[in-house]
């Protein structure tokens, strides 16, 4: 921050520049630890993954850093990879849609309570985070298994049987895991809403449902978009949930990448798939911010 010069002491342009430089340098020094952390643990590994994508695969599986080629990149359009990408994408989309449908009424309910109850309900949303994600996923494995409560209920109702190691099991796990990421931005958007706008709509002959469609829903759009991104992106790259609940039959992008690195020992292909996902997500995010900037 630059301090305003006293009116009776004119500051020369030169002095002002020096002050600005000093301020910039001070900010940089404060940010230095974070910079160092991000460079060493994020930027360098990311660059390595990018470089590996163009390396060739040696007999031991480690990337050969001398023989550069586009083999791995061209394998991205292989039918296997494309099929996995397609399955991952629609499962991530489905997860996002289900999360949205479940989270919106819930977020709306929370946002319209009194502040005390509101905070209590928000704590309930956060409670699952207090235990490890892996542990919670294993809990779902038990619930969805042959003797699990979820399976027993489904069998008693005659609607579903054992879902473990199927795509629906993965969907249930993903929705469960990412629901808070949808609830919180939606809550924030709805809570900010100016309710007199809804009253104005009602005053202008809108029924309760019409007022919701024409005012509440469009005005909570930032929350819908933010929540969708927060769910879709991690769902697309999910590894733990499909691995534990989906079994070997339902390979998704996350598992495919892990398989390339650990089982197939094809680091270049694993790197190429990782980079491709990241680039697609980057474009999606940029697109999102572009549209946001336009509407606001």
């Amino acid at each position, binding site marked *: 921050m630059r301090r305003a010069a006293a009116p009776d002491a004119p500051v020369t342009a030169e002095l002002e520049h020096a002050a600005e430089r000093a301020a910039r340098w001070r900010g940089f020094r404060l940010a230095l630890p974070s910079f160092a952390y991000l460079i060493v643990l994020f930027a360098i590994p990311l660059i390595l993954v990018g470089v590996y994508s163009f390396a060739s695969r040696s007999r031991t599986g480690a990337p050969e850093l001398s023989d550069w080629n586009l083999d791995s990149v061209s394998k991205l359009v292989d039918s296997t990879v494309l099929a996995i990408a397609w399955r991952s994408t629609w499962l991530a989309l489905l997860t996002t849609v289900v999360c949205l449908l479940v989270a919106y009424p819930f977020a709306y309910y929370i946002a319209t309570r009194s502040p005390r109850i509101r905070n209590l309900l928000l704590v309930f949303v956060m409670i699952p985070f207090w235990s490890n994600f892996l542990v919670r996923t294993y809990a779902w494995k038990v619930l969805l298994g042959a003797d699990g409560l979820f399976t027993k209920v489904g069998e008693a109702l005659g609607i579903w049987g054992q879902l473990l190691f199927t795509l629906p099991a993965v969907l249930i796990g993903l929705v469960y895991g990412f629901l808070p990421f949808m609830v919180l931005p939606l809550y924030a958007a709805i809570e900010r809403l*100016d309710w*007199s*706008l809804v*009253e*104005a*709509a*009602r*005053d*202008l*002959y*809108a*029924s*309760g449902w*019409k007022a919701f469609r*024409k*005012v509440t829903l*469009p*005005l909570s759009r930032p929350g819908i978009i933010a929540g969708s991104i927060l769910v879709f992106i991690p769902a697309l790259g999910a590894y733990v949930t499909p691995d534990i609940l989906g079994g070997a039959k339902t390979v998704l992008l996350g598992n495919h990448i892990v398989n390339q690195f650990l089982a197939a020992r094809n680091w270049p292909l694993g790197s190429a798939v990782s980079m491709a996902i990241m680039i697609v997500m980057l474009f999606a995010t940029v697109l999102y911010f572009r549209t946001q900037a336009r*509407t606001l």
Partner: protein
Amino acid sequence: MVDRRAAVALTAVTKRFGEVVAVDSVDLEIRDGEFFSLLGPSGCGKTTTLRMIAGLEVPTEGSVSIFGEEMGLLPPNRRPVNTVFQNYALFPHMSVAENVAFGLKMKRVAAGEIGERVAGAIDLVQLTGMDDRRPSQLSGGQQQRVALARALVNRPKVLLLDEPLGALDLKLRQAMQLELKDLQERVGITFIYVTHDQEEALTMSDRIGVMNEGRLLQIGGPEHIYEQPANRFVAEFIGETNFIDGVVSAEGEVALADGSVVRAHTRSGVGSKVTLTLRPEKIHLHPDGAPIEEPNRLRGVVKRRMYYGDSLYYEIDLGVAVIDARQENAPGVQRFEAGERVIATFDPGASEALTE
């Protein structure tokens, strides 16, 4: 019981929020085509009253009827009224034209007619050419006009306005006051106007209802309310006034604590304790010893003089009370200094004897 001409009738309407009584058994009839103001300090229940007419609140007790039709639990979208909200409540995600068209669209008016009426309403509030702007691109005054157009385009039988000028600066507010009054006369719609600004209420209204602590204290024309306040609160809330305690000694006469008797408008029997209300501008000051014929003469000493540009205010110690007197800053009006002895006179019709 309900007058056929009554646009809105409230019968024994009470609204409680938990323990709090926001509106306390209000009876009110608003005539068709009049500009009616509900005036009172914040928290007096005027906005709650308006919201009950709009259907945004449901009365705890009593009934609201609009043109003889009992409203009961009818939701706002099925009432023949529209509201101009305090902070306009314009839809930020819609253009000016879309905002104005909203009510007509909800009522499923034909597209061609919507276009015509929206254009007409936008012209009416002098925002021609602004159709495609977003509310955020408009000034406060322009937003206010959009809110008006959005309500008026529906041709409601009654227009409810909740402190519509509160967010504007003084100059704009005064200009809008005239414009609103003018508009109301042109469209001929009943306006119910909620405000805490007494000047606004006095200049625009045909009639005013003064509220405090949930009760409707007095209903009447601006002059009636100002000149003949029903009680101490009304006298004090509207304009400035002085209070002098006394006892009614005969009809039209009040004896003050020092034994002097003044003539005033009395409404209670001989012997009742009253408070005289006397507006500062109704008092004339004369130098001590001047020959005076007027019946109401009170001797006092100038304590302080305050200069207001167009006028001077004198704080005068009468012995029985300290009062403010306003004298025009005009040629021929005598000035007094602090410490000077003066005689204050006023017309018998200028003072009301209030029984709390």
